[in-house]
């Protein structure tokens, strides 16, 4: 076999091998991906840091006129509350911040594997009389619906497991 015959044979190989070359997209090298990931991580942490600072600033100085003088967490402004606390079995854990929202629902995502019961309270009521309650299975989410932005709300969480309560509350 000489190179000419080899070359002729290469011309004869199935089109799919030629197409594969044309359609091939190089995957980024690990090194490059790693650098991109690092840059993304730095940017994310920077944004989180900046977000946290802004959030604290907003919490401290910016109250809506309606709830002036009442310290609260505006979900529509701050987007979400992350709770990660160890709770006693059967004991209610009250989310520290009173909450307002511009939307008609508040979504609770249960990030732990244990089922939790979540209670919604109006700030006008005491904590023995929940407006709504719902059970949320592990690693799933549900929402309190039909809410009004005219109220301040509190949220209480109960777990029958000793696992840590881990939830994300969003608008």
């Amino acid at each position: 076999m000489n190179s000419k015959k080899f070359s002729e044979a290469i011309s004869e190989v199935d089109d799919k091998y030629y197409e594969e070359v044309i359609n091939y997209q190089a995957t980024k090298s690990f090194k490059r991906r790693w650098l991109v990931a690092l840059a993304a991580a730095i940017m994310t942490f920077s944004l989180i840091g900046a977000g946290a600072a802004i959030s604290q600033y907003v919490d401290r100085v910016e109250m809506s006129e309606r709830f002036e003088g009442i310290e609260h967490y505006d979900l529509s402004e701050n987007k979400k509350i992350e709770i990660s606390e160890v709770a006693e079995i059967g004991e209610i854990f009250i989310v520290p911040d009173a909450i307002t929202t511009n939307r008609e629902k508040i979504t609770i995502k249960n990030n732990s594997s244990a089922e939790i019961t979540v209670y919604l309270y109006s700030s006008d009521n005491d904590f023995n009389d929940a407006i709504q309650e719902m059970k949320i299975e592990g690693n799933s989410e549900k929402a309190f619906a039909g809410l009004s932005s005219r109220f301040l709300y509190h949220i209480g969480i109960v777990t029958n497991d000793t696992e840590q309560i881990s939830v994300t509350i969003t608008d």
Partner: protein
Amino acid sequence: MIEDEKIIAMFFDRSEQGIRELDIKYGKVCRKLSYNIVHNRQDAEECVNDAYLGAWNAIPPAKPDPLLTYICKIVRNISLKIYYRKEAAKRNSTYTIAMEEIEACIADPNTVEAEIEVKELARIIENFLDTLTVKERVIFMRRYAYMDTYADIAKCVGISEKNVSVRLTLIRQKMKDYLIGKEVFL
């Protein structure tokens, strides 16, 4: 850029605009492929034009899909013919260098394998290609089908030129072992 189907439709309508659109879309790739073989701009241009004419005569009835592969194969075959016609005078094209690389792992023509048909050899090469990873196959085909330089291959597959060189050496060695295993040459 215009879709392949529309270019082919123009060929079917015998509209010369189809050739112009084909050139706008794939002319650069074709000229590069041809130049890598014939190593002469004017020859490459002529090869590509001849390829367009070949496509014009073949479509219809042919309805190639994908069009790029089809036209590249025509360009490659025409360019190889030109190359062999002028072979004595030219020893500096990418094709020459690529074929010199491959000579090391193929036998002289006075052995049993000299009888092997091109088509049969093509099937054996296909089977060999199937043993490679996608990346290896792309590197191999870019080098020995599209006649790309190491630099172009490196850019395409996202590795260094040195890495391309090393990988090609390993692939050629693999091919040599494969061909020996298939008794293509002894």
